[in-house]
Structures are given as C-alpha cells and as structure tokens.
C-alpha cells in the first residue's frame, strides 16, 4: 500500500485530469465502475437488493446460494445478498467519516505547525509522535474502551488514529510553501497574513490531502471492519460487513457463504479504491504509470 513515494514539495505540480487516463487503462475503468456500484449501494441500497436485510425467516435458514437467494441465507434465514448490499452503507460511511475527520483535524494541525514553527510546531509534532507510537487499531481500541462501542464512537476512534498521517504531510508542505519565492513576493506586496495564508499557502499545502484520503480510505474501511468484527462497531442486527464476518466465522462449518461474501465486498471495494488512489497520485506527481 505504501510503496509509492509521495510527491516532493516544491516540485512542479502536474495536474492532469484523472479522466484523461481512463480509456488506456481497463483496470482503472473497472475500478471506477465498481466504486460507482458501491456508491449506489451506499446511498440507495434498495435499488440493488429489494429484500429486507433484517427480516429473519427461520424456515429459510442456512440455504446455500441459489436463484432465489444469490448469496444464500444466514443462520437466521436473512438474505445474505441483501445484507451485503445494505452493509455498504455502514462500512463505507464509517470509513469515509473517519477519514474526513482525520483529514480535517490533520490539515488544521499540520497547517498550524507549519506556519507557527517554534514552540507550537514542536508541541504539535511531539503530540503526533505520541499518538502514532500507539498502533492504529490499538489506539482506536483504547478510545473505544473509554467511549464504549457503537458507530459514532468507532468513527471518532478510527479518525483520531489516522490524524498523524495527514498532519505530517500538510505540515511538511506548509513548511516548504510558506518559505517559497512566490509567497515571499506576495508578502512584499503588503498582503495581510490572513490573505497570504488563505489564498496562497492553504490551497497548495492541502493539495495532496484528497489523494491521501483516497488511499487512506481503503485502510480505514479495513480497520472499521476489523473493529466491527471484534464487536466495537454497529451492533446487531445491523448488516455491517465486519460483524457479518464475525457471525459467518461461527457458522463456517455448515454455511461457508455467510463468511465469504461480506469479505469479498470489503476486498473488492478496497482494491478499487486503491487503484483509483494510486493512479491519481501518479497523475499528481506527473508519472505515467501507477
């Protein structure tokens, strides 16, 4: 995931539109299409799967995949296909919200540190060091042990764990940009500090954040599913992918399908997001290949 070097600050920023690269890359096209399907499932799951994801029918329990139940039914007789489709909402929204939280807080902290320098910079950098001394998921677990499990708490916990990776990049960029020639020149024009920061430093300092967010989203979705697998996320009967896998693990001997489809959904979603994120990053850095 982290094989790609991020663009060096100060390098000429090449922003070829992502869309231009589409026709030459079938993998990218597939990834974008899959993300579109997942997005529909997230916003309007009823459009893809009509069956109620929560309705149990003990008479139809543990049926293997068939024409009627594409992905089979689980131990309570619920339609697994419908649960996987409706689960997109939980898993993806948790991931997106956590990354959005981390990107916002991280950008603010990074900008502050990069502009203020001195003591403020030192304090923020130290704080980030301390936060990242705890492994991501463990930090999230510690926070959840204070707040208790649940969707909002999971978003918060995961978001906090992801703050340093955004803050570090924004700080480094701010550092370079605030000292670059054009900002110096803008300063000689007598622009106020606010205008200088808002119009000339901020846009470039956070230019990379959407790319980092896209790449981080995959990690966040896996992390969210993992914590839900442990019972820290949305509580049953919510069809979250991670908690579905936890149920599926218990019925593996008799019904493999309960534990296979939700995992496939996570993996394909994350692959698609990574493909787009890497391609975007390559375009940003002016490279031809991802």
């Amino acid at each position: 995931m982290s094989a790609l070097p991020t663009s060096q600050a100060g390098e000429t920023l090449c922003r070829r539109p992502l869309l231009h690269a589409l026709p030459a890359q079938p993998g990218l096209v597939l990834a974008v299409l899959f993300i579109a399907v997942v997005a529909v499932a997230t916003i309007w799951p009823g459009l893809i799967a009509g069956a109620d994801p929560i309705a149990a029918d003990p008479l139809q329990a543990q049926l293997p995949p068939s024409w009627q139940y594409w992905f089979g039914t689980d131990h309570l007789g619920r339609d697994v296909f419908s649960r996987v489709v409706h689960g997109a909402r939980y898993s993806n929204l948790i991931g997106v919200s956590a990354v959005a939280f981390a990107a916002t807080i991280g950008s603010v902290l990074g900008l502050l540190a990069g502009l203020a320098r001195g003591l403020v910079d030192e304090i923020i950098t130290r704080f980030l060091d301390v936060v990242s001394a705890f492994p991501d998921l463990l930090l999230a677990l510690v926070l959840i042990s204070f707040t208790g499990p649940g969707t909002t708490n999971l978003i918060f916990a995961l978001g906090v764990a992801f703050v340093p990776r955004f803050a570090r990049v924004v700080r480094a960029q701010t550092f370079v940009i605030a000292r670059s020639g054009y900002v110096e020149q803008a300063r000689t024009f007598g622009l106020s500090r606010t205008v200088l920061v808002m119009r000339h430093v901020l846009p470039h300092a956070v230019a990379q954040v959407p790319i980092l967010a896209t790449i981080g989203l995959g990690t966040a979705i896996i992390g969210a599913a993992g914590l839900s697998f442990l019972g820290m996320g949305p509580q049953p009967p919510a069809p979250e992918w991670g908690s579905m896998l936890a149920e599926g693990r218990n019925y593996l001997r008799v019904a493999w399908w309960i534990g296979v489809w939700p995992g496939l959904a996570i993996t394909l979603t994350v692959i698609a997001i990574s493909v787009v994120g890497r391609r975007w990053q390559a375009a940003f850095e002016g490279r031809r290949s991802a």
Partner: protein
Amino acid sequence: MESRQTSALSPAPALVASRPFKLRRNGLPVQIASRIGSGLLVLWAAVTLSFVSVHLAPGDIVSLLIGEQLRTPEIEAAIRAEWGLDEPVLWQYLRYLTRILHGDFGRSYLLQTDVSQLVLSQIVPTLKLTAAALFVAILFAVTSAVLTAGRRIPRSIAGALELTLVSTPSFWLGILLLYLFSFTLKLFPVSGDRSFSALVLPALALGLPLGAVVGQVLRQGLERALEEPFALTVRSWGTSGLVLRLRHGLRHAALPAVTLTGWLVGSLLSGAVITESVFGRPGLGRVTVEAVLGHDMPVVLAVAILSAFTYVMLSTLVDILYLLLDPRLRDEGREAAR
C-alpha cells in the same frame, strides 16, 4: 532518501521523520543519545497521556477503573488506595509514573488479578504468533521481490497479487484459510495453540498482507539497485542473475524497506488482536478485546503502554542502526528526512 517519503501512506518512519534536538555536526555518540532521549520523551508522554485520559474521562475514576465489576465499598477502598485518589493530583501522577517504571500496571478489578501477571502470562502466544507472521511476511516479500524485480510480466502478476493481499482484511483471509484448510481439507486444527500446526494458518493470515506491503517497497529498491553501475560490474564477472539479486541487490533494497519497521511492528500488534479472535488463540489480543468490551481500563492501558514501548524501542533501534550503517545520514539525515 526517497524511501523515507513513504510516510504519507503509512505512519512508518514516525520517529525517523522528526527529531527534537537541533544537532547537525555532532559526534555519533551524541546523535545516538539524542535518538534515545527522543524515544524516552515519547514514552513518557504516552504514559502521561494515559494518566491524563483516565482523569479527563467522563464519570468518576473509580467507576472507570472498576469496569463491569460490582461496586462494593471494599473494592472502592482498594482502588482509592492504589491510585492514591485522596491525595493531590500531582502526587497521584508521580505515584503512577513510579508504578509504571517498576512494571506495576495495577490491578484488574474485573478479573481479580494483577495486570502485570496477566500480561506476562499471555505474552508468549502473542510473541509466537507475531514472530511467525513476521517470518511469513519477510519470506513472501523477499521471494516476490527477488523473482519478479525488473521482469515485466512476472512483475505485473506479483503486483496484482500484492494489491489483492494488501486490500484483504487479515481476518477474512483467516476465515478463508480456516474454511479451506481446516474445515474442508482438515490439514490444520481449527483453533487453539497446542501445536506448531495450529500456528501455521494464523501466521499466514497475519503475515501475507504485511508481506505484500514490504514486497512492494523491496521490489522498488531492488529495481533501483539493479540499474546502478555496480550491478553491471557484477554481471561482467559472469555472476548469475539470482546471485546478483540475492547477494548484491537485496542489500541495497533492504535499507528502504527497513524504514517500514515501525509500521510493521504496529501492524503486527494491531493485527494480532484480530487474528487471535479469528483463530480462537490465547494471547494479549484476546485479553485486550475482552478488556475493552468489559471496560477493564487497567488492562487496556497496560496493553497500550506496552505496545507503545515496543514500537518506540524498535523504531529507535532502527534509527540508530541507520546512523551506524549509513554515515551520510549523520550530517544530512536531519534535513533530508524532514
């Protein structure tokens, strides 16, 4: 230096990337001391953070520390005495620091046992799992990088495999392995930690996704090394390609991959928590999950501090190793790593 910029995607060279002291042309011992000092500072801050969070958490401290245990006057008195809650906060803080320094993580009131003893008794299965997973990860990374670096078609196959593995949640990989090898083929036991064969599937589930990440970095480094003039020189001796890759190229490729150590440690510890649950293995991960669900704060904090300690210790060690291996970093490293 390019490899150090990978930090954007993973928090890998966290400690490598920022140094507190403004040293540039100092001697090696001073630089090593500053790295150690920096690590200790982070650890102190981590312990302080855990103390502060206990005090800032909503609700009173006794009910926070007691977890799901019934609240009786005896237990309440025991907690008050242990944390010195009737004394000034500063005194409580010093007391907490001293306790942690002595390796005393207090008492779990939920489990009615000393936290340090509990952690010690569970650490061996977790170490076994993480060591085996690390072995799997490195084996996968080296094999994949050495066999495919610079070769167009194998490279894209390995790349696709690595992308898939990186995107696969380790717990789902574990479920698939369990279904295939334990339930269907009946080659490995389903759960527990009684034999070596019980370690194989968990190590694969935890190690393969990590190996895929390391493999990507290793391959990039190897490809860069194979383009260098020395590779041509070695080839001109009539050395076979594989020997060139293994003996000469890998050495250069390993250095960038080593920056991933911090990230790797963190991922192994995080991953162990989930992997232990999937495979029903005993260990720290399982203890942590139960502690989190039962609000057993003393245990949760102990595990958190312990993992921060492991992370900081290993990152600092790698940092120092870097200084010893690559003299160029001694005066330019600071600026370049920014």
